[in-house]
């Protein structure tokens, strides 16, 4: 009970903090839309274009994984994964290294293919059909542990490339959009620098902005702070908390348990390629059911 109350207070604090930041930003740039940047009409018209997606409303399943199995050679990395993520839901995935967390979320935009089971994202099933895969990828943003920015392009060019090529947006429009998101991640002044001239935290924020420029409905984060120096972790997490507050559907693989408590609607604990436990963060941290989760938590929260 105590754990639960604690979780709530932290969460409220974070929400207040994010609210303050959002208010600050709103003053700074009054004419800009929210992080999501997508109003109802846009969503509906886009939904109409992709057919089944029109039915997806708040609270309905936007990612469905059912009976997913995957092997690397003889080694089974994913075992009977069943996971449903609803629109606007924030899911934090944790577990020991090698437990298949990254592989699982990489299946959602088919950076990895699955051998068995079904994965449906925004009404589109992921299979061998590359048209489906491309359609899903345009709706799903991904942030990597190693940032993976394009080193030969400036921050601004990193952001405008995909909107201009994959969405056929005009350069001027794409640059406005890019500057909007660079402002949102608080580094508009770095627009013309190359990734190598930026700090790790700045690079990761550019990478987040780059994904957001495609106006995704879902954001996947694959250990976004694991390659960062400790003093840069907060600036990236702050941006992610804001994004969560804006209502983005998020799947986050992370070891940042403070962030998980603050943001997650649901904790997923994985070990040896299977989902061992899924619970709201209050319950998961206060009273993990499985021994494996207890062991894991004791190991990462012991100091």
């Amino acid at each position, binding site marked *: 009970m105590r754990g639960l109350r604690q979780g709530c207070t932290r969460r409220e604090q974070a929400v207040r903090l994010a609210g303050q930041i959002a208010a600050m930003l709103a003053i700074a740039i009054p004419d800009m839309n929210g992080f999501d940047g997508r109003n109802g009409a846009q969503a509906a018209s886009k939904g109409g274009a992709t057919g089944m997606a029109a039915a997806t409303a708040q609270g309905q399943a936007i990612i469905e994984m059912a009976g997913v199995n995957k092997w690397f050679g003889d080694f089974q990395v994913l075992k009977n994964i069943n996971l449903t993520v609803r629109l606007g839901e924030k899911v934090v995935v944790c577990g020991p290294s090698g437990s298949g967390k990254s592989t699982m979320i990489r299946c959602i935009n088919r950076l990895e293919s699955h051998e068995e089971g079904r994965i449906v994202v925004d009404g589109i099933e992921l299979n061998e059909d590359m048209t489906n895969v491309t359609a899903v990828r345009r709706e*799903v943003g991904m942030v*990597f542990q190693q940032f993976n*920015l*394009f080193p030969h392009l400036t921050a601004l060019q990193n952001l405008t490339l995909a909107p201009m090529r*994959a969405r056929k947006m005009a350069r001027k429009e794409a640059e406005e959009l890019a500057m909007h998101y660079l402002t949102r991640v608080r580094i508009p002044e770095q627009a013309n620098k*190359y990734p190598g001239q930026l700090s790790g935290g700045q690079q990761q924020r550019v990478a987040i902005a780059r*994904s957001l420029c495609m106006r995704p409905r879902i954001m996947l984060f694959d250990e976004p702070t694991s390659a960062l120096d400790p003093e840069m972790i907060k600036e990236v997490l702050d941006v992610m908390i804001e994004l969560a507050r804006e209502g983005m559907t998020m799947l986050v693989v992370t070891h940042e348990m403070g962030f998980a408590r603050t943001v997650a609607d649901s904790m997923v604990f994985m070990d040896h390629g299977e989902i061992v436990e899924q619970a709201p963060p209050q319950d998961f941290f206060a009273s993990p059911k499985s021994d494996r989760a207890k062991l894991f938590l004791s190991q990462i929260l012991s100091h």
Partner: protein
Amino acid sequence: MRQSCCLATLVAATLLLSACGQSSYTWGWYVVWPTTEQGQRNLRFLVSGLWNTIAISGTAIAFSMAAGLVVGMCGIARHKVARGFNRLYVEFVRAIPILVLVLWIYYGLPVLFESAGLNINFDVFTAGVVALALSDSAFQAEIFRAGIQSIDRGQHEASDSLGLNYLDKMRYVILPQAIRRILPPLGNQFVYMLKMSSLVSVIGMTELTRRANELVVAEYRPLEIYSVLVLEYLALILVVSWLVRRLERRLGANQLAGR
């Protein structure tokens, strides 16, 4: 550039010094001496092949890079057939000596066309370009394949996850980075191509080497004339490697900032 000048001077000096040595050979530099009328005429004649050398190797390198890029990309394709094609092409084409390829295409291929009822005749230039480009493309393919494969997997994943299609990914993300890395070996191929274009002289292309051969027959001064030919190639290649270095520096400026 200064180093290149030094080198050129050194080579010229060596040649001149050997002329003053103890050997019994009587030098006849008059055939190519720049102050006499005969020497000027002969030098003009020798240099008149320059344009053809540049034209044939320039055209050939353009085609071989294009072909090399396509064949190289086949080598990293997902389809087995494309990868098989890449292996076959590279192994087969690079096993043929360039001189043999030049002869085969100029003298052999028209016979083949004729027997197939086609009336296609290559002129010397076309045959030369085809032969040089074909043989160089196998090497280019390997260079491009290596360059593309050296790019971090994360760059592919980032491009894929942003919804870029294969061609856009290659054109805007992978190749710009790969080409920066393979500039030194590409520069090698440019130099190699300039030198190999001398082989086309055997089918009568009036480029630098052919001109030198013709002059030797007329003047009977092979040592002096071929020495000038050496200097001609040296000058040409120094210019090319200077250009490649400049390009490397210019493209490298961003890359360096990207470290």
